[in-house]
C-alpha cells in the first residue's frame, strides 16, 4: 500500500527519498558528507514546516491515517489493559473501547474512541463514530470507576457521534446529555485527552472532567471545518477559512481557557514517531493523575463545576 503523504509533507519526503537512494549507492561511492548535508537540510525543512502549520494542516495531521489510535496508545503506555464490552442494555459499540488499565502501577479506567486502520476495521469501528450504546458503555465504566475509587482517563478521537436512523431511535442526544450530567458529578478524577479529532458533542460525550489536555496536532470544536464551510459559506470549498475562523487547535483552546495543556508531538507529527508520541502522552497522564488523585473529592467536584461555569464570554451591562 502506498504511503499516505500530505501535501505539505511532500518536499520533506522528496529529500528523504533522495537520501535513501544515495545511501544505497554509498557502498560504491564516497558520498558520506553529501548525505550528511542533505540530512541536515531535511531536518531544517521539517522543523520550519512544522513550526508554521496552518490550522487546516493541523486538522489534516489529526486525521492522518497512520496516526496512533486509542488501542495503539494503550499498547504503548499501559502495563496492562483489560477491555470490557457492552452497555448491558443494547450491545457493544466498537467505536468506543474501554476497560481496566494500569499505567506505571497506577490503576485506572481507560476509555477511548477508536478508529479503524484498514477498510474492514474502519467499518467495524464505524470510522470512530459512536452510537448511543457506546456512550452508555462509557458511562457504565465511569460508574464502575467511581464505585472502586479509580480515576478515569478518556482519549478523544472522533469525527462525531454517528448521524444515523438507529442512533436517533436509540437516543443519541439523550446518551450524550446523560454522560455530560454524570461526568459533571462523577466522584472520581477524570482526565480527558484529545489524541486526534474532537468533533462536537460526539467528542464531549466522553470529554468532560478535571483536566483537558490536547496533543499538539489535534482539534476540538463545535463542528468540523468542512461542515462549517457547507453551512456558513454554503459550499464545501471554504474548509481552510472555516478552520481559521473556528480556532480549533490545541493552542487556540488553551488560549480560550478551555484546554489546560498541550502534549508535544515529535516533529513531523505523532504518526512519524509513534513511540515517542506515546512517551509524551504517558508522562503527561502520570503527571495529571498524580496531581488530581491528591485532592479530596468534594474539592475536586467544586473545581470541576467552577471550571465549566467560567466558560463563556458575554456582556453583562449590570456589572460593567
Amino acid at each position, binding site marked *: 500500500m502506498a504511503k499516505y503523504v500530505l501535501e505539505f509533507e511532500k518536499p520533506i519526503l522528496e529529500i528523504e527519498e533522495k537520501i535513501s537512494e544515495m545511501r544505497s549507492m554509498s557502498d560504491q561511492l564516497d558520498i558520506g558528507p553529501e548525505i550528511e548535508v542533505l540530512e541536515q537540510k531535511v531536518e531544517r525543512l521539517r522543523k520550519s514546516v512544522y513550526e508554521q502549520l496552518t490550522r487546516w494542516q493541523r486538522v489534516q495531521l489529526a486525521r492522518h491515517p497512520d496516526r496512533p489510535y486509542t488501542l495503539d496508545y494503550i499498547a504503548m503506555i499501559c502495563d496492562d489493559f483489560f477491555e470490557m464490552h457492552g452497555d448491558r442494555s443494547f450491545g457493544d459499540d466498537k467505536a468506543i473501547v474501554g476497560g481496566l488499565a494500569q499505567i506505571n502501577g497506577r490503576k485506572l479506567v481507560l476509555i477511548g474512541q477508536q478508529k479503524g486502520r484498514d477498510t474492514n476495521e474502519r467499518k467495524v469501528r464505524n470510522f470512530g463514530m459512536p452510537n448511543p450504546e457506546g456512550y452508555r458503555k462509557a458511562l457504565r465504566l465511569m460508574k464502575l470507576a467511581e464505585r472502586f475509587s479509580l480515576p478515569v482517563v478518556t482519549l478523544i478521537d472522533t469525527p462525531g457521534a454517528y448521524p444515523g436512523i438507529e442512533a*436517533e431511535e436509540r*437516543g443519541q442526544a439523550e446518551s450524550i446529555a*446523560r454522560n455530560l450530567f454524570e461526568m459533571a458529578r462523577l466522584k472520581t478524577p477524570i482526565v480527558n485527552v484529545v489524541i486526534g479529532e474532537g468533533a462536537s*458533542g460526539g467528542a464531549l460525550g466522553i470529554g468532560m472532567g478535571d483536566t483537558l489536555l490536547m496533543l499538539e496536532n489535534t482539534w*476540538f*470544536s463545535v463542528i468540523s471545518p468542512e461542515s462549517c464551510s457547507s453551512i456558513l459559506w454554503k459550499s464545501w470549498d471554504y474548509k481552510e477559512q472555516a478552520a481559521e*475562523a473556528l480556532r480549533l487547535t490545541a493552542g487556540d483552546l488553551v488560549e480560550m481557557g478551555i484546554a489546560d495543556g498541550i502534549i508535544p508531538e515529535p516533529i513531523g507529527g505523532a504518526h512519524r514517531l509513534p513511540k515517542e508520541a506515546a512517551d509524551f502522552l504517558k508522562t503527561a497522564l502520570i503527571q495529571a493523575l498524580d496531581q488530581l488523585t491528591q485532592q479530596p473529592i468534594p474539592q475536586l467536584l467544586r473545581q470541576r463545576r467552577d471550571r465549566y461555569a467560567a466558560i463563556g464570554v*458575554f456582556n453583562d451591562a449590570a456589572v460593567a
Partner: protein
Amino acid sequence: MPWWSRNRKNLDESQNQQREMPDGLWTKCPSCETVIYKSELEENLYTCPKCDHHFRIGSNHYIDLLTDPETFDETHAQLTSTDPLEFVDEDSYQVKLRKATKRTGLSDAMRTGLGQVEGKRVSLAIMDFSFIGGSMGSVVGEKFCRAVDDAIRERVPFICITASGGARMMEAAISLMQMAKTSTRLTLLADERIPYIVILTDPTTGGVTASYAMLGDVTLAEPRALIGFAGPRVIEQTIKRKLPEGFQRSEFQQEHGFVDHIVHRKELRKTLSRVLTLLPIPETAD
C-alpha cells in the same frame, strides 16, 4: 444624499426585515393548506384549526400562554453576546448579532424570568428560534445557569422551553462547552431535589438536545415537533437514503422512550400546572 452613496449597511438591514408571520389578513397552513384568517389563528394559539399544525411562535407567545397575567418578571435581560473569536464567514458575527437584534427585538436566543403558572411560582427559560436559529452560545448558556440558580434560591421548579438548531458555530469551542456548563448546573438542581420540566418545541436539535433538552425530570413536547441530535439532512447525506415519514418528530421520540407526553399548545398551561401539583418540592435538599 444621492442614492449610489447611500449607506450600504442601512440598505442590507432594510431588506432583511422578516417577520415570523407573513403580512396580510390570512395565511395558509403549511401542513394541510387550509386558508386561515389571522384573527382565527391567533385565537387558536397559532395552531391550525383543521389539522392542529403548530406554527412556530416566539418567546413572547409562550410567556403569555403559560404564565398568569402580569406575573412574569424577566431576568438577566442585560446579557448580550460579544464576538470573542472575531468570527467572520460571509458576514461577521457582530453584523449577524446586530441584524438579529434589530429584526427580532430580542437580546439573544433565550429569555429567562420568574412567574406564576396557575398560581404556582416557577423559574422559566424560554428559547426563541427567530434569533440566529435559537443557537446556543455564551449568553444562552449563562442565562440558563442563572435561571437554574434562581430556581434553587427560591426553591421553585425550573421550566425550560426549547427551540434550537444547536450550538452557535460563531462561538466555536466556547459554545460547545455551553453543553457541559448547562448540564453541570443541572446537577445542582438535582441535588436540591427541585423539579426540572422540559417542553420541547419545533425544532430542537444538535447541542441543545444533547444537553439540557434531554435532562428533564418530566419531558413534554408539542405535537409533530422536530427533535433530534443530527439534523435530517445530515442523516440523509450520511446514509444516502430517504428518511421515513415522521422520523424525529415528537411522536417518534415518545414511541422510542424519550418524551413523557405530547401536549397540544392549548393544553400546555393546564398540563404544566398538573405536573407542578403532582411533583411537589421536598422541603429540604436531602
